[in-house]
Every structure is written in structure tokens, then in C-alpha cells.
């Protein structure tokens, strides 16, 4: 890439350092990495230090200052991928390429990545940002052959595009939507712009908020904050400008509902943003799209264009006077923690995705310091239905304190993984029956940050007051070694995805993983169990939700599957160091041509 091209990119974003994510994306996308000499140019032009630019680059999984290869393969390493035979696919990639993960060979890079939102069609990988699902060893050989022939990634699909809009010329992807059960939110017909023009246009912003409050809708990202109250805070907050964000950075392993919503009902998501903007008085909106879903970008941009033409965006959307609102799409670059709203805002400002200290909350001081509402994809489409059918209608769905429906991403050991929209208050058992799960040993409710529960709890209700979930439901049958196959993988996920700022979050998950490994080796004593429970007490002092929940896989499994831990306990022993002297000195012994004294 020439210096001139870099300047072209910088000009495109008006030398605005808050657009650093886009600048880096354009360069990375073009040359597969961001060379250090180019980093210096970017830094000088944006009046930053190179170290500061590198701070952003090095934070994100999909940016690199080292070459990633003409083809960059990122194979998902989530629990569900493992269940579906990832091991063989991974081995095939390594064998075909003759290299390990993390290396580049013959201009083809092989990397691991955290859950890419395809848990219903694993094993799956991203190749130069394009999604390839249902991988087999056969398919791996075919793909590597195509790469060696220098084929374009777009031409590497085996003519089998996915269902619904996935085969549209703007997406052209093999992803399938797996829509298994729809309800009042996803199922009803959606007529673009109708709610905005026929209903919102006749309401005051406060009317909109009141309707949301009446519905008792709570944020669907997982935290469950009442949406109407959030909008009201933002409406009352003082600011020259206000922003509406749609959080499409779902990264919780096992979740993929936002992917499906954005493919099936993108206009409805954007219309939800317009309604939110009208309610709080915002003029600009940003949909923060996770990098893994960048294959949807063109399609989404097209939807926005159509909305502008249809008078649903831009000047006076829906014909509402004194109202102007437009939306742009901000791509992420691979960081689970950016799903946390303040980290998402930091990222959209071009910085490392580190959660902010609160207060102030985003509704008071958010994007660029302006009052900002951040809503989940699912929350926004629910808001459209609430305006369409009334808060009272919505409030009658579900249970008293968990109103409405929940769109679930079901994956793992079941016959019919996919999207299920259910009214809150169903039991885990009902869901398992619905999805065709047999011999179920455990269900991971709400993804790794949620809880791992066993059969004795399957009659519990899924709702905010009992078993809350952001939507990820991973079914695990009795073939699996729960501790080794599931809990260990989840701990590795949290270790990898911590932003690294708070001391406990940076350290405790690693220490707990070491304890788990000791347990798996059969070397643990009761003291190790006590240590786990005591050390995990540090997690609530971390800054954000990731930090608060990063020990949950081990804590909830220790609580609900204690017998699995006890089985591996070393009996009749008070203390076991877990340290083997012979192993520790083996290397140095070899060096001086000795064997350890055994």
C-alpha cells in the first residue's frame, strides 16, 4: 500500500481520529495487515503517537501489524464448535497447510478466534471476513486447494448459499438462518416505515417513552435495564447532540440471534433506532456491527439507503417536523468486551474497547461525551412492535415481571439448533423438548457468563427473576466431559477476552483455570476447592460485566456439579503442590546431558 493510498483513506475520514477504527479497517482490509511504517504516518496525520495508534490496533483480534496472509483463516474455537468436530477440521487445516495456528504459510494465515456467532452451523471459520460454515475435512482440503490456485474468496463457495436473504446478491453467504420458531416479535408481518409514519408521527416523544414504560420492556442484551426508563434518562439529559446506538456486537459464545434478526428484519432494527431517536431527541445513530458479521454490511447499507429514499431516515423521517436522524454502520474488529455498552462507545470513538468507569453513564455522557442510548438489536425490534400494538399488549405476554418474549439462540447437543422466540416463563425442560434434546446432562443458560445447570434444575423458569438469559442456550448431553470440554473452554474464553485493565479480571480467571487443570489431572485436594471459592470473591470488584461474570463457568459448575469435581479429588491428602520437580528440571537436565533423578 502506497503512502498516497494511506492519505486517501485518511482524507476519506477527514483526518478524524475518532474514526480510527474505520481507517485501520480500510488498511487491514486492503493489505491484510497494518505495517508499522504506515502506523507512523497515521499517527502523525492524526496528531497521535504511534504507540497510541498501536494501542487500538493491538487490542483487536482482527487487526495486526504483522502480515496475516493473502488468505486469513480464523477458525472458531468455541465449545459448540468442538462438539461438532472442530478438532478434525483444525487438524486438516494444519496438515494441509503444514503450519500451526497463529502462523502464516504460503501467504495463508491460520488463526483461532472466539465464537463467531454460527453456533447453529459449526464448525465454522472466517476467511478474509467471509463466513464458511458446516466445515468438514473434505471441505478444508477443497478450500486450501482453491486458495493455492489463487481463487477469490467470493468464488470459493460451493454454490450453496444460505436460506432467505443470505443468498441475495448483497450478502451471498452460505449462512443459514435456522429460524425454528417465531412469535409475536419475529413472526408478525413487518411493513417498513408504517409504524413510524402512521403511529409515531402522531405521538409526542413522551408518548413513545410512556408506551415503552407501560410495556415493561427490559434490555435484551442480558443486563435487563428497563428500556423506557433508559430512554427517559437520555431524553432528560442535557447535551447539544444525542446519539442512539444499536449494539450488534453479540459475542457471548452460543448466541447468534442478532445475526438472524439483522438478516431477517434489518429495517425493523433501524426503525427501532429511529423511534428511539425521536423519543430522546437524537440526531445521529450508529449500528455497531461485530466484525464477524461484516458479511452483512453491504446489505445493511442498502437497507439504510432505501429507508432514506422512503422518508424513514434523513430529514424529517416519517414526515415528523423538526426531526432529523441518520444512521451509519460502525464495524468492530473482534473483541467480546465491546458488547459492554461503554466499551462499545470507546471502540466507536476509535479507541481500545475498554469499559468506562461509571458514573457517568452513557445516557448522561456517552459517545463523544454526548448523551447516548445503547440498545440491543432485539430490544429495538421489540420497541417497534410495542409502538405498533401498544405497551399493554406487550405487557400481557410473558410473566408479570418478565414481559414479552425472548429470542433464544439454541445450540449444542440437540436435533434442531436455531432461533426460538418464546414468551418468558417457559421451563428449561420445555425448551429441551422443543429443540429435540436427549440425554441432556447440562444446559448453559445465558452463555459462559450465565449459569451451567443440571437436570434437577430443568423445571426452573427462564425469566429475569429466576434464570435470566441474554439468549444463548447451549445444550450439553451426557457424552461430554463437562469440566474438560465445557468449563475449561469457557475459562479460556474469558482469559482471552478480558481487556486487561482491572487486576482481578486480568489474573483470577487464569489462576482458576490452573486450579481446574490441577483438578483434571487428579491432583486436587479440598484446599483447592476452598481457594477457588475464595479467590472468585474478588470478581465483583472488577469494573464491568465481563469482569463480574468471568469466573461464573467454574463457580456455577462447582455449585451445580460438585460431584464431578469430587470424583476427581485426591483422597486422604491435605496438600498437593501440583508441581512436579522432575518435569520442571527436565529441560535443563537434557541440556547438560543428564536424566532427572527419579
Amino acid at each position, binding site marked *: 500500500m502506497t503512502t498516497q493510498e494511506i492519505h486517501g483513506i485518511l482524507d476519506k475520514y477527514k483526518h478524524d481520529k475518532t474514526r480510527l477504527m474505520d481507517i485501520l479497517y480500510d488498511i487491514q482490509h486492503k493489505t491484510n495487515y497494518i505495517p508499522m511504517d504506515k502506523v507512523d504516518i497515521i499517527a502523525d496525520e492524526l496528531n497521535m503517537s504511534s*504507540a497510541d495508534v*498501536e*494501542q487500538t490496533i493491538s487490542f483487536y483480534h482482527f487487526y495486526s501489524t504483522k502480515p496475516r496472509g493473502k488468505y486469513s483463516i480464523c477458525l472458531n474455537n468455541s465449545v459448540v464448535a468442538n462438539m461438532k468436530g472442530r478438532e478434525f477440521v483444525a487438524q486438516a487445516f494444519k496438515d494441509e497447510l503444514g503450519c500451526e495456528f497463529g502462523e502464516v504459510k504460503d501467504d495463508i494465515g491460520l488463526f483461532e478466534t472466539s465464537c463467531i456467532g454460527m453456533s447453529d452451523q459449526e464448525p465454522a471459520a472466517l476467511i478474509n471476513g467471509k463466513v464458511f460454515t458446516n466445515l468438514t475435512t473434505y471441505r478444508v482440503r477443497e478450500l486450501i486447494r482453491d486458495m493455492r490456485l489463487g481463487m477469490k474468496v467470493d468464488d470459493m463457495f460451493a454454490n450453496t448459499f444460505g436460506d432467505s436473504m443470505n443468498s441475495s446478491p448483497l450478502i451471498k453467504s452460505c449462512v443459514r438462518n435456522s429460524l425454528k420458531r417465531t412469535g409475536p416479535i419475529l413472526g408478525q408481518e413487518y411493513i417498513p416505515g408504517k409504524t413510524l409514519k402512521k403511529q409515531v408521527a402522531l405521538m409526542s416523544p413522551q408518548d413513545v417513552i410512556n408506551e415503552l414504560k407501560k410495556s415493561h420492556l427490559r434490555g435484551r442484551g442480558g443486563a435487563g435495564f428497563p428500556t423506557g426508563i433508559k430512554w427517559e434518562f437520555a431524553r432528560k439529559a442535557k447535551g447539544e447532540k444525542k446519539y442512539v446506538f444499536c449494539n450488534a456486537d453479540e459475542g457471548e459464545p452460543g448466541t447468534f440471534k442478532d445475526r438472524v434478526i439483522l438478516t431477517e428484519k434489518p429495517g425493523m432494527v433501524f426503525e427501532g433506532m429511529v423511534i428511539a431517536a425521536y423519543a430522546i431527541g437524537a440526531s445521529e445513530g450508529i449500528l455497531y456491527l461485530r466484525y464477524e458479521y461484516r458479511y452483512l454490511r453491504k446489505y445493511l447499507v442498502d437497507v439504510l439507503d432505501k429507508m432514506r429514499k422512503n422518508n424513514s431516515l434523513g430529514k424529517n423521517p416519517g414526515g415528523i417536523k423538526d426531526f432529523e436522524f441518520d444512521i451509519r454502520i460502525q464495524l468492530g474488529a473482534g473483541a467480546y468486551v465491546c458488547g459492554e455498552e461503554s466499551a462499545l462507545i470507546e471502540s466507536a470513538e476509535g479507541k481500545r474497547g475498554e469499559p468506562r468507569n461509571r458514573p457517568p453513564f452513557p445516557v448522561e455522557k456517552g459517545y463523544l461525551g454526548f448523551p447516548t442510548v445503547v440498545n440491543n438489536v432485539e430490544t429495538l425490534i421489540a420497541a417497534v412492535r410495542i409502538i405498533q400494538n401498544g405497551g399493554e399488549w406487550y405487557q400481557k405476554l410473558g410473566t408479570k415481571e418478565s414481559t414479552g418474549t425472548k429470542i433464544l439462540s439454541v445450540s449444542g447437543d440437540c436435533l434442531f439448533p436455531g432461533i426460538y422466540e418464546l414468551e418468558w416463563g417457559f421451563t428449561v425442560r420445555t425448551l429441551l423438548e422443543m429443540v429435540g434434546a436427549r440425554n441432556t446432562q447440562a444446559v448453559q443458560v445465558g452463555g459462559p457468563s450465565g449459569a451451567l445447570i443440571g437436570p434437577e434444575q430443568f423445571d426452573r423458569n427462564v425469566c429475569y427473576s429466576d434464570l435470566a438469559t441474554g439468549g444463548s442456550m447451549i445444550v450439553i448431553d451426557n457424552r461430554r466431559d463437562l469440566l474438560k470440554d465445557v468449563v475449561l473452554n469457557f475459562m479460556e474464553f474469558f482469559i482471552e477476552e478480558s481487556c*486487561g*485493565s482491572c487486576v482481578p479480571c486480568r489474573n483470577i480467571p487464569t489462576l482458576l483455570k490452573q486450579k481446574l487443570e490441577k483438578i483434571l489431572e487428579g491432583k486436587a485436594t479440598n484446599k483447592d476447592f476452598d481457594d477457588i471459592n475464595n479467590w472468585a470473591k474478588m470478581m465483583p470488584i472488577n469494573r464491568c460485566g465481563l469482569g463480574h461474570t468471568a469466573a461464573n463457568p467454574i463457580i456455577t459448575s462447582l455449585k451445580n456439579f460438585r460431584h464431578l469435581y469430587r470424583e476427581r479429588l485426591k483422597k486422604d491428602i491435605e496438600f498437593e503442590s501440583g508441581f512436579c520437580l522432575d518435569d520442571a528440571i527436565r529441560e535443563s537436565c537434557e541440556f547438560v546431558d543428564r536424566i532427572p533423578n527419579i
Partner: protein
Amino acid sequence: MEKKIAHFTIDNKECTATTGVSIINAARENGIFIPTLCHYEGVKPAGSCRVCTVKVNKRHLTACTTPVAEGMEIEVDTAELNDLRSSVIELLFTEGNHYCPACEKSGNCELQALAYRFGIMAPRFPYQFNERDVDASHPKIYHDHNRCILCKRCIRIIKDEKDLPAGSQGRSIFAFNQRAKKVKIKLDDRLGKELSDELAQKAMDICPVGSILVKETGFKTPIGQRKFDKEAISLDNSINLKAMKEAHHE
């Protein structure tokens, strides 16, 4: 604008302070010391070390980043919180590689001083022996990552102000690099080379540990005569008292 006074309690003691000041400063105004580490008076708090964690109405919050408000019930000096603070200090010792007897900052080190204050003899966590490097490539600064506790003071305080267009912020000479366990502080290659003696000295002074050291000088004050050699870290000698007074004066 008239300053509003907030009434609140710290460990059941009735206190008052100006609404909106940080809990740390509000406590200090009432003669109560909350241990801190990453905090540096007069600089925007980072809330990254979590040592100043207190409980406000039963919730854990950092005292450096949370403004005091009317009616808060704050817990500071409880067995649970002191144990959490001690745990944080211990984690920093096991995560890095700290050999106090050989460190230039021994006696002036806030991490060491807090460890003494909390009576830490040995950490409860296993040492990680993480491989960290020493960067001696910069002309003025010797940057030892083994001792870095990632408090971000250098990122926040040491800025390059040369040739700046009006109204813009100084460029960061230090920055975070990577994430998760791999996170480390990077000293900018080019700005590091141009670093002035004053700024290099300031970087060393504000570093709570011995990670940032000025080259070609050392042990000016003999061990035994340093800040925390004779007295424990406390309300009177913590976080650069001078800076604190100046900030209060403003």
C-alpha cells in the same frame, strides 16, 4: 455556583463533603484514609487497580472514580474490604516479577509500601513467573516490564506537548498495548527518543513502582532513608502530597 454539601457516612461515622468530589477526597476531608495505588491526585482517575474499592450501599465501587452523594453509606475499613485490597496487592506481586532488594525504587515504592501496610508476608496466590522483558532501547529511560503494575499513571500523565496545534491534547508517550494477560505499557519509539530530561524524571517519579527508571543515575537517596523506610504509607505521605495539596488549592 454554590457548592452543595453532601451528608454521608463512612463506617457509620457521620461525614460531610462537597457533592461530586471523589469518595477518596471526601474521606480525606473527614480524616479517613482509603488506600490507593493507580490513583494520582489531580489526574483523571483510571480505576484500574481496584485497591481503593469501597462498598457504597452494599455495592463494590472504586473510591477514586465515584463521586460522593447525599445519603451514601460507605464502608471502608472492614475485614472483607481490607482482604480484597490485600488480594489485589498480592496478585500484582504474583503477576509481575518483583525483587525488592535489587530494585532502585525500594523504599519509595507504593506497591511495596502497601504490602507492608497490609502485613503481607507471602502471597496467597501462586507466582506466575510470567516472562516479561526489559526495554533499554530508549536513550533516557530504562523500562522494566517485570515491575510494571499497569496502573496507567504514565499513560495519563506523561504527554508530549511539543508542536501541538492549539486546543489539542498532548500525544501519549506511553500507551497500553495488547489486551488480557498480554497487556503491557509501550513507550513510543519516536517520542521516547526525544524525551526531555525533565519528562523522563517526571515519568520515573510518578511511577509507583520501579518500572520506569532514568538511565545513568541511581540510588541517589540511600536505602534506609527513603519515603516508606521508616513509616507506613498513610494519609500523610501517600500519593504525592504536594500534588494533592496543589489540586485542593485549585
